[in-house]
């Protein structure tokens, strides 16, 4: 689903120099409560595939048992970390919020990003739902601007929250047709 959104130029630009900005509070809203589960299942699938490959390998090649054990330990460790630890970590980091002028989101786990984009420059609002997202009733929203480096990704939202968000963004932004570059 893709909605084309026009842009408005910020009407107010009375650059009264206020006190310098000391920082930014984090955006308010967490993703869906089902998000960690969805992330865990998503990465578990890959690790299972890898484990299956290793079982096949063990079946056909029984030399060097120490190598099998080493690889097995690495796989189990990786799987535990990415299925149990990473989703919860991501859930603690991921936040999003729509303000009157801007969209702000925080993502990542090990490497963390905060990204903010002005709503007046929003070009499109995309909703994306993969098979797993459907299974868990989730949706991902991408807010794009004219810069390929400035798209704000808000992932793993409840479907109704995502729909509301898209409607809200379209409402705020849909006046005029500046080319937003």
């Amino acid at each position, binding site marked *: 689903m893709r909605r084309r959104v026009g842009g408005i130029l910020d009407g107010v630009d009375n650059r009264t120099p*206020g006190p310098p*900005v000391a920082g*930014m509070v984090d955006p308010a809203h967490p993703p869906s409560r089902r998000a960690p589960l969805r992330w865990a299942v998503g990465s578990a699938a890959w690790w299972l595939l890898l484990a299956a490959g290793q079982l096949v390998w063990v079946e056909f090649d029984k030399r060097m048992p120490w190598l099998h054990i080493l690889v097995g330990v690495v796989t189990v460790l990786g799987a535990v970390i990415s299925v149990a630890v990473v989703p919860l970590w991501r859930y603690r980091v991921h936040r999003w919020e729509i303000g009157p002028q801007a969209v702000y989101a925080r993502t990542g786990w090990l490497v963390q990003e905060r*990204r*903010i*984009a*002005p709503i007046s*420059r929003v070009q499109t609002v995309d909703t994306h739902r993969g098979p797993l997202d459907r299974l868990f009733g989730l949706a991902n929203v991408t807010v794009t*601007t004219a810069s390929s480096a*400035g798209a704000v990704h808000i992932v793993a939202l409840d479907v109704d929250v995502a729909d509301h968000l898209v409607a809200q963004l379209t409402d705020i932004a849909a006046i005029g047709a500046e080319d937003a570059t």
Partner: protein
Amino acid sequence: MTLPAPPEIAWQRLSPRMMLVHPVHELLRELPWLIGAVILGSTTGNQFWTVAVLVFTAGVGVARWYTTSYRIDADPESGQVQLRTGLLQRKVLSLPRNRIRSVQSDARLLHRLLGLAVLRVSTGQEAKGENSSGVFELNAVRVEQVPRLRAILLAGSAQPADAAAAVPAAEGTVLARWQPSWLRYAPLSVSGLLTIAAAAGVVYESGAVGPLRHSRLVESGLDAAQRLGVAGTAAVIAALVLLASVVLAVLRSLLTFGNLVLLRQADVLHLRHGLLRLRERAYDMSRLRGATLRQPLLVRAFGGARLDAVMTGVHGAGESSVLLPPCPVATTEAVLIELIGDRDVVTGPLRGHGRRAAARRWTRALGLPLLMGSAMAVATVVDGISVVPVWLWPAWVAVTAWCALLAADRVSALGHRVDGRWLVMRAGSFERRRDCLATAGIIGWTVRQSPLQRRAGVATLVAATAAGIKRYPLIDVPENEVWAVAAEASPWVADSIWAIR
């Protein structure tokens, strides 16, 4: 400017002289084919094949001219420019006129001999959808028509109806003119080496190596090599390659940029250069979002710099954004000041990123050498003096010293400067760059932290724009200043509900 008024604008053809150019280019492109045909002709004793291929190629050229046409709608706001091409498969390429951001013309040698030029139009949008799957290219029109067409095409973008009217007549101000002294920066690039590599590749591919091997030149070369020994031969070959690459690079630079003129006419920036292949670009100044002063290490060592435009609708990297090739840094700064209109933005002092950012530069540069050094020391202590070859120690010292210099250089480069109108970012040693971005063009901010950056209390700030290379990172800004920079540049960050005052 005069445009045909009726609502249905007639389709116009390209210059009929292209019937001469296309076949020749076609022949060059189909050279392997042609050689095949000639060989086939001479082996079978029947020249029919050669003639048939020639006729076919010429026929394609004529047909292409006949089937290609273009038109420009009169209304600059809602009108379109359209290009109709295709012999068997008809294709119509349409661009809205108000999306045109830059117009460039390009004339290769053959085009110039015939008084023709290729006109290329680029828009802000990346190629999207079926109607813009190709480049909008008029190949070719009469060179006398180019200024008029360019004025018409650029008149549609933004507002400057007055600029368009002024273009054909006004002289404009010359911002920079090529000087012979610029040639001294040419050998410092790798373009000569690349040319040699490409030429070697072509020679090797074409199978000319076989006969060459038995030629007298190569035989005498081999004799000389035997007399010199391996090291001597390698040195001689290296010297020859170096010399050839320097000569080629200088020659290439001269041919590409000799006679370069950068001039500004009202709201349009004109760049023209090329001795053999003449290239002309016209940029809409209202799309200029800043510029990047780039200083590769060697060029910087000789007091040079190059200038790239940061512009929407123009690809940020590579040739299309070049405003000035390597030239004295004073020239690039003068041009940039002229374009930006603010001396401090271009040459003013920057705010450094502090102790922690510096420490990160040092640990990155010296971490590996120190690790290796201690490993070598431990090995010497444990296994005796003979384990580590003696020459390794001076080499290690040299590498470490070099890394230290690199770190010091990177530390001294890193900095930024921000006010309500301009964001300046400088970084790098090998490829030092000073990006000057108009804050009005910044349409997104990213603050990124790796675990190590979180521990050091610094963050990477990325300004997103629709212009240039789109992503302009500023590394290792102190955590407590990072949002202040963004807020200073963008009022919509400062006024957002998340800002802490």
